[in-house]
């Protein structure tokens, strides 16, 4: 049930019973007062009549004619005359009844007219008293008192209706006042409902709307200076804050959604890029495969070439050498010394060429083949190589200094070749020193060139031999590059090229320091 109806019911439920109760109490009070007042008045009137009768009787008695009928009659008639026109209010009147015949003396009855007082009723009430009696439709209130000397009963009668006229008037007025009060009360309640219930109802509707997500509903306004007004204003303020917050939230959600969309786009782009990268990668792999296959073919061709070089190029050299020797053996006497020397040069050249071919093949073999990296003890390798050198050249006086515990990570077979070449080079170029000195070791944090950052581990082979002109240091590692005449120091110029290839295969670098006649140092990293 809506609050307004509840309030209306409350109004009715309170006002009606209260009004009715007050009315009833008023009616009873008025009735009681009316009765009391009438009794006193009626009693007084009847006493007055009786006083008159008594004084008349006294006069008669004092005159001594109380027993004389005619005097008595005259006195009685005077009394009756006196009160013949007596009226009390509208309906009040005096009645006098003579006993024992119950003859009504006043008001005088016309012939055959029945007396309006039922005498029995009077007798039943005793010598005097108040009583009510219904005469037909009319209710009457009576008081009677007797005057025994004359056998008279004086009776005062009033219509109850008249007597209670005030009460009825009151009832009438009270009804109107009650109705008016009811109306006024209802109006007050209506006002009450409008100023308290309606705002509360609006509040409830607004709250319901907000709870259902309708932020656009008009918020209740109030100028009332009461708690409901405070509540309404507080609610409105709160709702505005909430609405603002909701708006912010919506904005943020929208921004978030935008970000999400952008992110989604970016992800899609990213995925596309990835796919492209994947395709490119695949393409690249395909190309790598193709190149590898091509490289394999090229490698195979190279191998075939190397094979045929090793086989076919050497055969003519063998013939040159062999037949030169045959000439020397069989026809040596027919040649002079110079002719014999020429033939020796032919042989020397062919043998050198054979050596070049062998070295070339060796170089190409070094760069082919599988490389297996593993920990290598370079110190013991260097020891081994230097022992071999000393064993092959026992007449040489060379001091070999090998730093112990030099380890490296690389292919042991190839690293041995590196050390063999570097150490035998050092051995060769210290050949003219009375006391040769060869060092092998390792340095930490040394720069390869002046600008380059330092490398953690640098290995070196140092000698005090013939050295070289640093202007040509770039040429040292070229194939068949030589910085010395062949009759000074023999060799094909393939050793350092081989070293460089091996070092490069390990991802390292090799370089040299030196000066003419002041020795040389070869550095390498791995």
């Amino acid at each position, binding site marked *: 049930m809506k609050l307004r109806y509840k309030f209306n019911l409350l109004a009715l439920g309170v006002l009606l019973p209260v009004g009715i109760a007050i009315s009833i109490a008023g009616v009873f009070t008025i009735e009681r007062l009316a009765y009391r007042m009438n009794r006193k008045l009626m009693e007084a009137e009847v006493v007055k009549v009786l006083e008159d009768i008594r004084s008349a009787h006294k006069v008669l008695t004092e005159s001594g004619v109380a027993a004389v009928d005619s005097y008595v009659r005259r006195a009685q008639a005077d009394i009756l005359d006196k009160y013949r026109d007596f009226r009390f209010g509208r309906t009040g009147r005096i009645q006098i009844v003579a006993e024992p015949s119950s003859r009504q003396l006043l008001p005088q009855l016309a012939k055959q007219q029945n007396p309006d007082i039922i005498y029995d009723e009077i007798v039943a009430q005793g010598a005097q008293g108040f009583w009510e009696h219904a005469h037909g439709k009319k209710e009457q209130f009576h008081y009677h008192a007797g005057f025994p000397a004359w056998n008279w009963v004086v009776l005062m009668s009033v219509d109850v209706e008249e007597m209670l006229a005030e009460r009825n008037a009151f009832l009438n007025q009270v009804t109107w006042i009650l109705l008016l009060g009811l109306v006024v009360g209802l109006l007050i309640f209506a006002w009450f409902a409008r100023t308290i219930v309606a705002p509360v109802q609006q509040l409830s509707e607004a709250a319901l709307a907000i709870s259902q997500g309708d932020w656009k509903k008009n918020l209740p306004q109030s100028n009332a200076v009461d708690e409901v007004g405070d509540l309404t204003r507080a609610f409105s303020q709160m709702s505005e804050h909430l609405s603002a917050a909701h708006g912010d939230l919506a904005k943020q959600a929208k921004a978030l959604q935008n970000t999400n969309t952008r992110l989604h786009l970016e992800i899609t782009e990213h995925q596309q890029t990835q796919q492209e990268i994947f395709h490119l990668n695949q393409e690249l792999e395909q190309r790598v495969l193709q190149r590898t296959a091509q490289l394999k073919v090229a490698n195979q061709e190279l191998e075939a070439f190397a*094979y045929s070089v*090793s*086989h*076919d190029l*050497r*055969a*003519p*050299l*063998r*013939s040159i*050498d*062999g*037949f*030169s*020797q*045959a000439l020397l053996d069989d026809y040596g006497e027919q040649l002079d010394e110079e002719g014999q020397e020429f033939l020796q040069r032919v*042989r020397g050249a*062919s*043998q050198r*060429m*054979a050596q070049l071919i*062998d070295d070339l093949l060796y170089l190409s073999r070094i760069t082919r083949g599988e490389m297996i990296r593993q920990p290598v003890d370079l110190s013991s390798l260097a020891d081994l190589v230097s022992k071999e050198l000393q064993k092959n050249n026992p007449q040489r006086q060379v001091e070999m200094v090998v730093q112990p515990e030099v380890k490296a990570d690389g292919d042991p077979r190839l690293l041995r070749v590196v050390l063999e070449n570097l150490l035998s080079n050092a051995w060769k170029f210290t050949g003219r020193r009375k006391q040769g000195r060869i060092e092998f070791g390792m340095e930490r944090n040394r720069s390869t060139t002046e600008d380059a950052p330092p490398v953690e581990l640098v290995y070196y082979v140092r000698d005090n031999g013939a050295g070289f002109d640093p202007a040509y240091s770039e040429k040292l590692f070229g194939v068949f590059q030589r910085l010395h005449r062949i009759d000074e120091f023999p060799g094909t110029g393939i050793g350092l090229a081989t070293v460089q290839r091996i070092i490069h295969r390990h991802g390292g670098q090799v370089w040299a320091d030196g000066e003419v006649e002041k020795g040389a140092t070869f550095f390498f990293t791995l």
Partner: protein
Amino acid sequence: MINKKSILLVEDNSDDEVLTLRALRINRITNRVVVVRDGAEALDYLFGRGSYADCSESELPGVVLLDLKLPKIGGLEVLERLRLDQRTRLLPVVVLTTSREEQDVQEAYIRGANSYIRKPVDFNCFLNAVGQVGNYWLNLNEQSYK
């Protein structure tokens, strides 16, 4: 020396043939030398077929000096066929070639070569090598003739 075993020289290069024969002679290896110039001829000779079908001579050589790079049928194939035949499976075969490729050396031994000699360019070294091979296989080494 009575009943000297012959030497079969399989060599396509006439220079090498001359030099080998010279080396044998200087080393005083006087055994008869049969020269064939390719792999097919070598097989014909050893199995008594083709142009050698009517030869009554059934004796196998004491040693075969086999070059690897030969026309028609290569040295390695010759070696393989010899080892498959019951009669020639124990025949001493010395590979005498220019190549020093590790692969060739390995393949030759796998196919049952008894020795692998690389011909040096220096004739004096070659002379020495031929002398040693001849002496070893023809005089020093005991063969099974089964």
